[in-house]
């Protein structure tokens, strides 16, 4: 089973919860799909055993063959190519290129525009005890994390059990891509107006994608019923709560988490989710 840990708002505790959970249900696989800012490694401290480049094709113009007709630049939907006809020069803006391949397709001169791989990030794999660890790291300035996320999640093996996918924040394409791979979604939220508003966006998206889901309440304070009221109104279960404690925040700041403390209850949570997915 694959469980995605998501949230509309950043900083609600996705990675805290995802790493605690992966630890509790080990042997497990933890996949960090927040490729813009992957942080799971800080808490799981894996030994990296394998690292490979993630590349996509980008155009390269061969000056001797190019006639500077400009068709590639005209057809590029992302305006990543500029052809200066009078001076017979070309410019390529890699941060705008989406590697769609149109330029190569439309070029009328054989061999004038070739596609070459450009490194856009890395995929790393390793182990933290009996947790299998995987993460993607996007290079700075790259326009979209989606292809890297997609490539990373395809590396999840059919044999990998108890897979926890740490999703990116927000509710746009990278999150859609990530949730697409999940059998169940846990939305981590906190009882503040920001947290609940952003959660409501994530709920809308998860419902659109027709994924079964539930809420995890982080920074729980028994005197504050904001999130509980929202969940009741929307008829969504809050399946687990992590308390609001300065001690947890402090250990988090050092890259540590109280793994043992929540282990037993998180295993029970996993059994509950299994029942729901069946």
């Amino acid at each position, binding site marked *: 089973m694959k469980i995605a840990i998501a949230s*509309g*708002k*950043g*900083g*609600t505790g996705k990675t805290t919860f995802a790493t605690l959970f992966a630890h509790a249900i080990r042997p497990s696989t933890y996949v960090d799909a927040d490729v*813009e*800012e992957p*942080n799971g490694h*800080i808490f799981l401290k894996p030994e990296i055993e394998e690292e490979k480049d993630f590349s*996509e*094709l980008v155009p390269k113009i061969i000056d001797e063959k190019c006639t500077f007709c400009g068709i590639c630049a005209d057809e590029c*939907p*992302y305006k990543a190519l500029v052809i200066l006809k009078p001076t017979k020069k070309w410019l390529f803006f890699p*941060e705008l290129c*989406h590697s*769609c*391949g*149109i330029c190569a*397709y*439309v070029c009328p001169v054989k061999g004038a525009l070739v596609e070459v791989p450009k490194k856009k990030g890395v995929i790393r794999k390793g182990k933290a005890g009996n947790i299998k660890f995987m993460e993607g790291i*996007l290079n*700075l*300035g*790259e*326009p*979209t*994390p989606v*292809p890297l996320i*997609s490539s990373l999640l395809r590396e999840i093996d059919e044999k990998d059990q108890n897979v926890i996918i740490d999703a*990116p*924040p*927000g*509710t*746009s*394409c*990278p*999150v859609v*891509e990530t949730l*697409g791979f999940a059998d169940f979604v846990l939305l981590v939220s906190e009882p*503040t*107006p*920001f947290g609940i*508003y*952003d959660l409501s*966006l994530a709920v*809308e*998206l998860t419902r*659109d*994608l027709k994924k079964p889901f539930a809420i995890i309440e982080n*920074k729980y304070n028994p005197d*504050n019923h*904001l999130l509980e009221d929202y969940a009741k109104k929307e008829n969504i279960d809050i399946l687990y709560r992590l308390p*609001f404690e*300065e001690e947890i*925040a*402090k250990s*988090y*700041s*050092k*890259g540590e988490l109280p793994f043992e403390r929540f282990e037993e209850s998180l295993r029970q949570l996993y059994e509950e989710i299994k029942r729901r997915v069946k």
Partner: protein
Amino acid sequence: MRAKEIVLISGKGGTGKTTVTSSFVWWMHNNNYNFVIADADVDAADMHLLLKPQIKRKEYFTGKSIAKINTESCISCDLCKQYCRFDAIDIIDGNYVVNPFRCDGCGLCKLVCPVDSAIDMIPQTVGEWYISDTNSGKMVHAKLYPGAENSGNLVTMVKHQAHLIADEANIPYIIVDGPPGIGCPVTSSLSGASYAVVVSEPTFSAIHDMERAVDTAFHFRVPVGLVLNKASLNDKNAQAIKEYAEKKGIPFLGSIPFSKCIVDALVNGKFALEGCPELTENFEKIFKKILEEVK
């Protein structure tokens, strides 16, 4: 003169970007500064929860076009599927269909399709943007529909509208609440900005992300300053952040302690600074420094 655009980013979400931005806005207003507010976190815009804008103008935002295959004309030649780099074409019940979440809208499928009318590129309405009045001045904000892409372009639109308002009324500042991460929406927020304030916290995760955010700002040649939120959480990491700023040659603008008061203020719909007057000195020092930096 073009308004100075001050963008607050963080890399990591939840470090207190919106908390600092909204208090900045509240403070500037109380000190008679003129500015336009832009919420560029269009995925999860939260400023409106505090600023309670009254919407004066609402527009729909058309993003990229997405391919649509007309089943009647499609001859199932498979070319579109073979060429698509985004793996966006599925075969469902024997029919070729486009997965709208994966389609990047490049249009290569339409180019390779041998049938004239089998593939159309349909523009998508992916969100809304608004111009509103708040107690602190005009605000431009937006809502990206869940699951939509192109948030970078929507961010550009929000900032563009903010500049139009500023130009017309000769307003000297635009305060931008930026998105988390380092991807397209962030680069759009940084593009053309006068100054980036990176809000961090003394946790390993936030430090890691802060460094990526600072490098992204450098990449776009935007000058950067650092704010340390929740400073009292970890003295060692707090010190490390100050040393990092020094090493990088970027100004350390000031710090705010870890405070339950701020959480309570937000829960009660108040600006952090409004709800925690004991933090006035901390906030004020930061805000004054930012304004000095952008002079």
